[in-house]
């Protein structure tokens, strides 16, 4: 193949995957696009977009303006909402009322977010109104825009799911690698601890954490991470057990490379894809756990919009024929969970192709 264009062995003549590794990012993207079916690419981008939407929900869908000039004073109410300060409306009005009465060519002005409805903005006039152009996802039984609530519900992905999975991943990978590399007493201890954690009634703990332990978010993340680290530790330990017998580890050890460096530079990069697969599965489990909690009515985010809580309310509405109140949050959960599973499949396929 390489003889066709130029002398054998020149870097430009390398084909397929090798070319994608060393060369331009654009080529790399094209290569992955060609390897994977379209829905795998779509699902990964969807997850990224969903997380960004959750992170920036207050400036994407809100009933307060992004930028406002009231009596010559500039303010940024939606951004205040983003960092957690409740924005106070001008002249004893809500921002929405003030905005509606704003004269067109006055000195004051307001720039609303791209989706000008808040998650808790109640409007009885559009009570249970079905999907239409102005409200593509419809409205719930108190006249709140479902699209805005779905977008705000995605915040749980960033606030709970991501930290829990990352924490579980770091702790589990390190402990698993340590156990697999050191063997002996460390391994026995880690194995027993894993077994101990496997028997924990996790949902019970999550319920308790959500219902009672203060603000709950920190505790929820901790309990979820405690549930997840065991899967990472088991996978990584198993992989490291066989990897540590390879010759290059022996070489590194005899050259005096420190244990930490062998672990982080020689062993862990090899289990990257397996850890990724586990992370994707754990993310799906975390989404399900979070929505189950808020569905049972004990989520830490009870006051805010959350997909599970919306379903709880939608359950009553769907029987009455208002399907949209139930359908869109349900679809969001299913799509996000499926996207996580598809990512896991994709990573697994790539790992088996690479021969790890």
């Amino acid at each position, binding site marked *: 193949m390489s003889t066709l264009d130029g002398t054998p062995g020149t870097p430009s003549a390398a084909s397929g995957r090798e070319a994608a590794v060393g060369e331009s990012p654009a080529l790399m993207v094209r290569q992955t696009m060609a390897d994977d079916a379209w829905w795998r690419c779509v699902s990964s981008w969807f997850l990224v977009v969903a997380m960004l939407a959750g992170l920036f929900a207050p400036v994407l869908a809100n009933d307060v303006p992004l930028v406002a000039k009231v009596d010559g004073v500039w303010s940024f109410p939606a951004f205040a909402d983003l960092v957690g300060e409740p924005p106070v409306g001008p002249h004893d009005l809500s921002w929405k009322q003030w905005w509606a009465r704003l004269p067109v060519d006055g000195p004051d002005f307001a720039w609303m977010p791209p989706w000008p409805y808040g998650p808790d903005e109640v409007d009885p006039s559009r009570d249970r109104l079905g999907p239409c152009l102005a409200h593509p996802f419809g409205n719930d039984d108190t006249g709140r825009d479902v699209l805005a609530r779905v977008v705000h519900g995605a915040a749980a992905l960033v606030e709970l799911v991501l930290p829990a999975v990352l924490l579980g991943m770091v702790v589990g990978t390190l402990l698993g690698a340590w156990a697999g590399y050191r063997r002996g007493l460390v391994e026995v201890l880690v194995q027993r601890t894993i077994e101990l954690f496997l028997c924990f*009634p996790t949902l019970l703990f999550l319920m308790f954490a959500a219902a009672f332990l203060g603000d709950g978010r920190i505790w929820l993340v901790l309990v979820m991470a405690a549930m997840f680290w065991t899967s990472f530790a088991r996978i990584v330990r198993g992989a490291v057990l066989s990897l540590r017998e390879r010759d290059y580890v022996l070489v590194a050890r005899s050259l005096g490379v420190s244990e930490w460096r062998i672990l982080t530079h020689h062993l862990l990069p090899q289990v990257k894809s397996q850890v990724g697969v586990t992370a994707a599965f754990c993310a799906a489990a975390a989404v399900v756990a979070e929505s189950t909690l808020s569905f049972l009515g004990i989520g830490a985010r009870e006051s805010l919009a959350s997909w599970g809580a919306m379903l709880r309310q939608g359950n009553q509405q769907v029987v009455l024929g208002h399907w949209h109140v139930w359908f869109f949050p349900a679809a969001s959960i299913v799509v996000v969970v499926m996207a996580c599973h598809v990512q896991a499949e994709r990573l697994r396929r790539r790992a088996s192709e690479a021969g790890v």
Partner: protein
Amino acid sequence: MRRWLLIRLLWLVVTLLGITFVTFVVLDRAPVDRADLQLERAAVQEGGEWAHSRAHSLLRLRVQYGMVDPVTLEQRPLLQRYVAWLENAVQLRFAGPEGDHGALWRRLGQALPVTMWLGTLALLLSVVGGTALGAWLGLRAGRGGDRWASVLLLFGAGIPEFLLATLLTLGLAVLWLPILPASGLRSPGAEHWTLPWQVFDFAWHLVLPVTVMAIGPLVMVARFVRDSVATVMRAPFVQNLRALGVERDVVVWRALRHGCAPVATLAGSLLPMLVGGSIVVEQMFSLDGFGHLAYRAVMEQDQPMLMALVVIGSVVTLLALIASDLLHRAVDARVRLSP
């Protein structure tokens, strides 16, 4: 063998101590304690009147629950309280120092049959159904319908239990084809019916909850068995049998025996899934089993009940893990039992 069992049982006790201690500590972290909550509720029910004697009642309740030393009236340290709990628990007295043990056991006893029926049927359905489905798919791996089957399985693994429960309830009990009951375990007035009708009524009520509980584990088993059988079908010994001209039925049977053996190890880890699932399912179908007890205990911060449930749940899970190791050994002679 006997030594292995002994070591495992020893570890079971150690693990149990660990689990109960951690649970005890976490339950203790609650900002409002049980006595506080109880007074709060009483105050809501009875109206005012409570404020002046509140501190006194609080102290009395806390002494009764063993949180405060009755002589010095000081908070007892966590470890001391845990040891006290442990002493009672060893004698199966879970209700606390002065609680009503009979009442607690009665509540557990009433909930047991519901949970047993649900759990056993769901476990059976998921293991048998999952193995059959997985084997069927595994023998057809790589053919046309394979991709669609895996998409369906992906969907089954991804959908949360409460969503599935809602969908099935809507479809088969409320809206489109209302033939199954949506809640409870008995039809009203069923106690006057003849026995066969009562049994049928009971089974009819169990269909939806058991299906919802079993789907997640079933899909897990099916995916596992599918991959395992597909791998075995490409194994040298199967190709050898084929090359020798052995009948297809015999080849498939041998391959399945090898491919399905690892299910034994999986069965142990299904139990925690079912325990978690029972909370959701019992809540959604308003059944009074252990899951419902757990939900109520969390809501009312009933520490003794929670601890009792945690102990029962962990003992069952740990025993199931041991049993599944033994089962794996029985199915596959190559497996060595390592502690």
